């Protein structure tokens, strides 16, 4: 055991090169490594590529700051609100190149990489523009007849991002990582990526992970770096820690409709704060405490009317 994998947020972000092909944990308004993304913007990371499923908050931040060059992905949408304005503007202006997949297809590309095989056969996407209308990908998928039965399938090639950034509940210094709740695409992303950086709500003592091994999403030997960032998913939520900050998300979405307003958001909450602690101070302790999960429910009481 050593502390070699434990990095500061600044060090972990500094290890990501410009132009990296990245994949981020989380789904919609949940489990998203937002503190990492804010630090990426502060450090000026640029020309980035995303291999994505539904990391809307990451894509919209990177796009709005002009740092996203291209994205292969299946869906960027703020649930209950609508399309991602910053991302959409970037595509509409020709500044961001896109390649669209279904959720299952893009995830299958990650699975193939994690399995160490060059491709996987899948059923969806056939017959649609997801197959027929191409973006930047040299080869996206290939129709194929099953050699045993002749059944038509599509072959999708393995996708290997350079870096996966995952926000989880807790990890120990070896990088053994646990998450409460649904696990999104974490396992597939981590096994596909060349490097895996995990940010967590808390780094726990040696042995804690082994007490409940059923909660482990990533064994430490798959993890390259561990960063402790409490509330590191804010404004998205972490099950059993805190809810998504819906009021913040609503304000963000309003700002994202307008470039000048979004610039002010970035100045206020990203460039105007030096580190995650200053960010949390700006959000305010009263607000953060109100988002805290009730231990019995896993979510905050303010958002649970009748669940108790």
């Amino acid at each position, binding site marked *: 055991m050593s502390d070699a994998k434990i990095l500061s947020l600044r060090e972990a972000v500094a290890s990501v090169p410009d132009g990296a092909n990245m994949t981020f944990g989380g789904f919609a308004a949940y489990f998203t490594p937002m503190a990492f993304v804010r630090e990426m913007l502060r450090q000026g990371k640029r020309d980035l590529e995303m291999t994505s499923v539904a990391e809307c908050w990451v894509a919209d931040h990177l796009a709005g700051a002009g740092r996203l060059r291209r994205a292969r992905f299946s*869906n960027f949408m703020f*649930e209950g609100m609508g399309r991602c304005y910053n991302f959409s503007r970037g595509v509409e202006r020709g500044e961001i190149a896109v390649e669209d997949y279904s959720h299952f297809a893009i995830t299958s590309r990650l699975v193939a990489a994690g399995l160490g095989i060059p491709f996987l056969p899948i059923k969806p996407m056939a017959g649609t523009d997801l197959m027929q209308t191409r973006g930047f990908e040299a080869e996206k998928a290939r129709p194929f007849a099953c050699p045993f039965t002749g059944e038509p399938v599509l072959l999708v090639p393995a996708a290997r991002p350079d870096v996966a950034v995952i926000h989880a509940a807790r990890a120990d210094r070896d990088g053994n990582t646990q998450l409460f709740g*649904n696990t999104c695409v974490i396992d597939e992303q981590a096994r596909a990526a060349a490097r895996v950086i995990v940010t967590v709500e808390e780094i726990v003592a040696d042995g804690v992970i082994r007490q409940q091994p059923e909660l482990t999403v990533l064994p430490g030997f798959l993890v390259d770096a561990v960063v402790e960032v409490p509330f590191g998913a804010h404004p998205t939520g972490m099950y059993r820690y805190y809810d998504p900050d819906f009021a913040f998300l609503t304000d963000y979405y309003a700002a994202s409709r307008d470039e000048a307003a979004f610039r002010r958001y970035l100045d206020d909450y990203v460039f105007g704060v030096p580190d995650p602690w200053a960010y949390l101070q700006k959000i305010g302790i009263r607000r953060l405490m109100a988002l805290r999960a009730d231990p019995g429910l896993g979510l905050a009481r303010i958002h649970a009317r009748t669940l108790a």
Partner: protein
Amino acid sequence: MSEVTRQEIMAVAAAREIQDGEAAFIGTGLPMVAAYLAKFTHAPSAVLVFESGIVDARPRELATGVGDFRLLHGCVKATGLYYALSLLQGGFIDIGFMGGAEVDEYGNLNSTAIGGYARPTVRLPGSGGANDIGSLAGRIVIMMPHEQRRLVPRVQYLTTPGFLDGPGGRERAGLRGEGPTRVITDLAVLDFEPRSKRMRLLTVHPGVTPEEVQARTGFPLLLAERVGETPIPSAEQVAVLRGRVDPEGIYIGKKG
């Protein structure tokens, strides 16, 4: 009881499509309202699966999204997206619900882009699980507002397959399931005529005429032998919708 809203009629029509014991792949909004209503009334054993990796959620409060912690709390299995979508490809999902910006007469949907792909006029969210559901679920129910710019002769980008280019289209592409079996709008309930696979008007909601439906559709509709009226929600259904499923009227509309 105040007058029922069109959204309530839509929710009840959609709920009716879920049979007891079926596994349903559910999104946010009206499909979730319909699924909860089904669970609270005629289909208590229906299993609700969400692409976020939440399996057999217990319907208590309406969720704001498919990954909402209110769905997670008390569900049977919390897993990943790949597992949830594998259930579709594995043939375990009986029915799926979806919407889109555009639908054509064969039930193909666009949720990707308007006005070109690489440099569109309006970039939309993209397929997400929609193409997976449309390609693989046993039956598909489409729900959308009935507008001429949405029900179009040809979708600008075919994100999610209905019957593709018509009879035999799904089979040629190797897709699974029956394809779309219902289209539920704020004006009418439609299906697809079995031989031509073209959209067909089944019933109009109270106060709506077939002519009005056609006028707000961008392609010629086939007509059922006898176009009836969509059943109005029962008193019990309305009570459950307003009292338990959506007491704030977020999706079923405000009552006056």
